[in-house]
């Protein structure tokens, strides 16, 4: 069990001139977003949010535009102050911090990557990457090598002296990631970091993030509106709708047991074979008598790999292993059944 790095507790955010009164109406009368807007003229940004981000994991918060996901991530480093609730970071409530302590946390313990990159256009790529160090008052001679190191790591060798406008969008976002990494903070907040990139570059960047993550084990909060991206990156997936959490769990669980018609609609045309892993669809038995085993596979493999291995043959059966230990068997016909998509609901978002 890994420890919880960031815990968001009972978080509410109401936008408007008198949020406290409006909050009372939400809590006591159970008003939803549309009713609150109609009766009180306030916008309910976030409602009763509880999320635990575990250390070393990627927690993805997914939702369509207007669902409050960008608002939520800005609460974590208090770019936005909540109306009610608490944000516990390493065991202490961030809301109780003095401005000085808050600045220290932002400088040393949390870094952020932005959708529109938000690089400083008048500074070179290396100076941009070193922003966090510069802010801390570290000298140029010390921070430049550090910045170059991380620029190399994200694949921008030799671009240190260029200016951001000379780089393509994908490269600019690499600078954004290098900037976050150079700060050497445990926590990375990524606000729709890849949404402005085109699909191929986006896949590249996702792979880069996973690769870096294996090595660095940061606690990452990742915001996206793209379910494919969410399923690919998430260790823990939170689905947000109209400022409320609809479901949060491991991605595969959400895919197999969607708790809400909204999510059913979301997952109905996902490439399930890529998301589901062997351990979720296997038969948990070690009895292999009378079964012809075609080969061995690891339980963490996704189904796409297995299908490729079996060359599409549905009669085969594989032995599933967790390291050296046998944990079950996987029949190809079971596998195919698990790929049958959940029907989209008739009155769901697609029907409209």
């Amino acid at each position, binding site marked *: 069990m890994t420890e919880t790095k960031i815990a968001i507790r009972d978080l509410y955010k109401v936008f408007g001139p008198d949020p406290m009164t409006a909050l009372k109406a939400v809590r006591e009368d159970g008003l939803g977003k549309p009713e609150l807007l109609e009766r009180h003229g306030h916008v309910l940004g976030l409602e009763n949010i509880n999320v635990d981000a575990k250390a070393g994991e990627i927690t993805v918060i997914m939702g369509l535009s207007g669902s409050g996901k960008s608002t939520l991530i800005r609460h974590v480093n208090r770019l936005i102050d909540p109306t009610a609730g608490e944000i516990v970071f390493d065991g202490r409530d961030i809301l109780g911090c003095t401005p000085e302590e808050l600045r220290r946390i932002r400088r040393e313990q949390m870094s*952020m990557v932005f959708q529109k990159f938000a690089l*400083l256009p008048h500074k070179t790529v290396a100076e941009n990457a070193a922003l966090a160090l510069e802010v801390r008052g570290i000298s140029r001679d010390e921070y430049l090598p550090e910045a170059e190191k991380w620029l190399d790591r994200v694949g921008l060798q030799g671009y240190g002296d260029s200016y951001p*406008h000379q780089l393509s969008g994908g490269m600019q976002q690499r600078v954004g990631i290098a900037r976050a990494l150079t700060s050497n903070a445990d926590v990375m907040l990524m606000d729709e970091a890849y949404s402005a990139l085109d699909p191929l570059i986006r896949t590249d960047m996702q792979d880069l993030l996973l690769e870096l993550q294996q090595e660095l084990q940061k606690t990452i909060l990742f915001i996206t509106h793209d379910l494919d991206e969410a399923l690919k990156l998430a260790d823990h997936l939170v689905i947000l709708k109209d400022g409320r959490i609809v479901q949060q769990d491991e991605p595969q669980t959400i895919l197999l047991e969607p708790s809400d018609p909204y999510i059913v609609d979301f997952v109905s045309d996902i490439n399930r074979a890529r998301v589901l892993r062997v351990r979720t669809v296997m038969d948990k038995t070690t009895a292999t008598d009378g079964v012809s085993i075609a080969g061995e596979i690891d339980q963490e493999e996704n189904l796409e790999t297995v299908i490729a291995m079996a060359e599409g043959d549905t009669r085969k059966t594989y032995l599933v292993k967790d390291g050296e230990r046998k944990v079950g068997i996987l029949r190809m016909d079971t596998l195919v059944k698990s790929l049958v998509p959940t029907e989209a609901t008739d009155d769901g978002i697609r029907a409209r």
Partner: protein
Amino acid sequence: MGTYEPIFSALGLRSWCESGEQSGGGPVSMADLLAQNAGTDAPAPSIWEMPFPSMDELHEACAAFPQSRVLTKGLEDGFLGIKDGLSLVLDPITQPLSWFLEGALWLFETTPWWIMIPALLAVVLVVSRSRKLTVFVGLCLLTFAFIDYYSFAAQTLAVIFVCAILCVVLGVPIGIAMARSDRLQRAIIPILDMLQTLPAFVYLIPLIFLFSVTEPKLYGIAIILYAIVPVIRLTDLGIRLVDPDVIEAADAFGMTDRQKLMKVQIPLALPNIMAGVNQTIMMSLSMVVIASLVSAPGLGVLVLRGIRNLELGVGLVSGLGIVVLAVILDRTTKLALARINAGQDR
């Protein structure tokens, strides 16, 4: 007598009006004198000729009612009343301006031309990084010197340098403060509007009362008041236009307000601030000509001489000289601006 006399009678103010008459009333107007000379009362006016009940018209009906000239006279008296107190405060505060102007004029006049011209060219080259412009400026300065207008042009330049620098030194912080506070912005914008639209000559009138005409700060203040507006406005605008995403990033990485201002806002607002500086220089140039009415030295004096003595040639040459100075200053600052813009083109 006045058209509105019956009204005063009806209101029972007759005696008050007459008390005004006894005291001799205000100054006599030309119209009164003419009427006295003619010695006849005009026939009763028809409704078509009924005058607007203005102060003068009401005064005619009732002697105790003040004439409109009392208003302007009162303003003048009021100003004269506070004048001494005001100049007691303003005089020491603005004294450095006189020193700066005197110093700059002294520097530009006493430095021999063979040092001054190369020095100016070096400044142009450093600021604009353009050899072409430097050659052009060199030719202009040499022409000025050749036709014996160099010392006048140098005086004008000296005054502009001092005033423009002071405009930037004062204007940029005011602009920054405005960008940070909506309330301050709301308070200052009407003042800027007024400074910008007030006819340039009007600046001079109260200043003449406050300071002696022989002091350089008299025209210095007039020029600064007139020329400071664009640099304030554009600093405010530039800082407000800085991409909010970048500001958010600065916050997210824990910048203090001061770091944000120095490392993000001012550098990103620099193109706008420089545009303001360019406008400020242009406006001080136009004001330096008008300020020659109150002893500002330079080409403006020659323009004034051209008008006063109808010396067509002198007026034209010095007028064109001002145009050439304007072109030089404009091109130099524009090129500097273009360089900054190119540096942060997105």
